């Protein structure tokens, strides 16, 4: 087990370094003086000189990278051109907002889709299986932003059950904050439901075709014992991996949902920064989301042996 954890950690570190290099290079691909780009229209000779000194922009590229990484370790991602605020605290604030949509949607999606996927596999090719798979395919063919708009039309404008758009902080008004999050979470939940259900069904079908399941059935075990005690843990492994990928993808992809419901999340911060050509924020968001993605997948890998102990043993 120790070797397994060590192996996964040593795989994640080079990936993080390569991602940092890519983000560093990407921003330096933009033609022009990086200091002028980072200061924007407000740049003056004194400000430019100070920034060049701070980031070592007058030195060689490897030296610049070393300075950038050392500042990174101190949590210094620079300041936003548009707002003047420090980049890292802004990113963390917005990240927490995005998490309030993404995490409940994934948790609810998993709780509903995994049993449904297993049920569909259990009833393979029956009417209930075909109905569930058709619904799942339909759900994942609907783009989240359109789904969000349709839900807004129905529940916000037509039925008037929830406010149309907006955002409130839980610390200020928990009830309002909850109500504002209902539709965005529902939108993501419905989309992820389709994705997770199909994966849960496919992996359950794979497991149900294995000899040990045939053996369990031949012993006369009741079907619910076969499904939950013998099939579930093995079948959940691939779905568990998928959840890590979904979480990471959503941190970048949630921008469309945040746009529909005007929620000030991390995705929206990145898109607004691209519009404003706010390069320190763009660089910070790219690095932060990619790092979270790698870390989440590392956690997923490390927890995988809980569902399939063979992985750690290999």
């Amino acid at each position: 087990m120790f070797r397994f954890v060590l192996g996964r950690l040593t795989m994640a570190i080079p990936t993080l370094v390569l991602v940092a290099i890519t983000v560093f290079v990407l921003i330096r691909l933009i033609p022009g003086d990086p200091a002028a780009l980072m200061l924007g229209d407000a740049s003056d000779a004194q400000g430019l000189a100070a920034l060049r000194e701070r980031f070592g922009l007058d030195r060689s590229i490897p030296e610049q990278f070393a300075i950038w990484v050392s500042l990174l370790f101190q949590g210094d991602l620079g300041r936003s051109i548009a707002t003047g605020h420090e980049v890292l605290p802004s990113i963390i604030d917005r990240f927490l907002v995005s998490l309030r949509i993404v995490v409940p949607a994934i948790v609810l999606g998993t709780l509903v889709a995994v049993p449904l996927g297993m049920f569909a596999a259990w009833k393979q090719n029956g009417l209930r299986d075909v109905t569930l798979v058709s619904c799942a395919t339909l759900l994942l063919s609907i783009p989240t932003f359109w789904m969000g708009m349709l839900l807004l039309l129905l529940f916000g404008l037509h039925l008037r059950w929830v406010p149309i758009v907006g955002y409130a902080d839980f610390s200020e008004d928990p009830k309002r904050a909850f109500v504002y999050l209902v539709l965005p979470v529902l939108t993501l939940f419905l989309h992820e439901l389709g994705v997770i259900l199909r994966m849960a069904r496919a992996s359950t079908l794979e497991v149900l075709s294995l000899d040990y399941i045939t053996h369990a059935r031949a012993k006369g075990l009741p079907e619910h014992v076969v499904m939950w005690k013998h099939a579930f843990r093995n079948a959940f492994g691939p779905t568990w991996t998928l959840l890590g990928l979904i979480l990471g993808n959503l941190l970048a992809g949630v921008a469309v949902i945040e746009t529909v419901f005007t929620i000030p999340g991390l995705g929206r911060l990145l898109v607004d920064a691209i519009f404003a050509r706010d390069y320190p924020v763009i660089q910070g968001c790219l690095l932060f989301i990619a790092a979270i993605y790698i870390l989440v997948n590392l956690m997923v890998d490390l927890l995988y042996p809980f569902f399939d102990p063979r992985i750690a043993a290999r």
Partner: protein
Amino acid sequence: MNKSGINLYIGGLLVGVLLVVALIGMVWTPHDPLAMNFAARLAAPGAAHWLGTDEFGRDQLSRLMQGAATSVKISALTVIFAVVSGTVFGVTSGFLRGWVDRVIMAVNDVLLAFPGLLFALGLLAVIGATEYGIILSLGLIYMSSVVRVVRGTVLGLRTREFVEASAVMGNASLFTMWRHILPNCVAPLTVLATSICGWSILAESSLSFLGLGVAPPAPTWGNMLASSRGFLDQAVWLVVFPGLSISLSLLGINLLGDALRDLLDPRMRKRA
């Protein structure tokens, strides 16, 4: 008819309709998609404008047809870019191995380390949100999946007798790759290319919805939906038709992809 057959027919039909509408949209539309007519502003679907008009009185059917053409063009070019470059790198990496393999896979792993659209967004920030910028950035992120699939297939093939026989006969590596290895990659590539087609239509619509796609007034399904947000309570047709176009296209591609996967990969038949 079995499930794969139904998927193939429905998926094929929807994709066929998309292609026909896109092709017609490239050369002809009932009205000029950019012509404004304030007298017909936010007109409901009717005889004059079958799918209604937008806030500038522009005919929505014409804009949807041109949007289909844009989506298909971007999607097709993205698929070509991703599949061609991914196949070249994948075959080279898997066949030659050694340092070439290590370098290609290291670069590929960096692309795969960025979630979903993130790398595309970063690249668009650098090169600008133009049609070719979108194709390049989407093509690069989907290329990484192609490289992985092709390399995996090639690794499984390079020790097979027919490949070794080709080397023994004195054929050059390039000839062996082209004549003997590449044809064996066609089945997995066809399935993956169908998926990339769907991903790129969705990604292009999402980028357009965010304002990072093809710039208005040129119509795309994504920017039509984005501009409809201000008229949710007045013109529901502005929300329904562009979204329906994206969803039906994605549904067709997903069904076709499922059917092709079942046909070309018999191991998946049971699971599907």
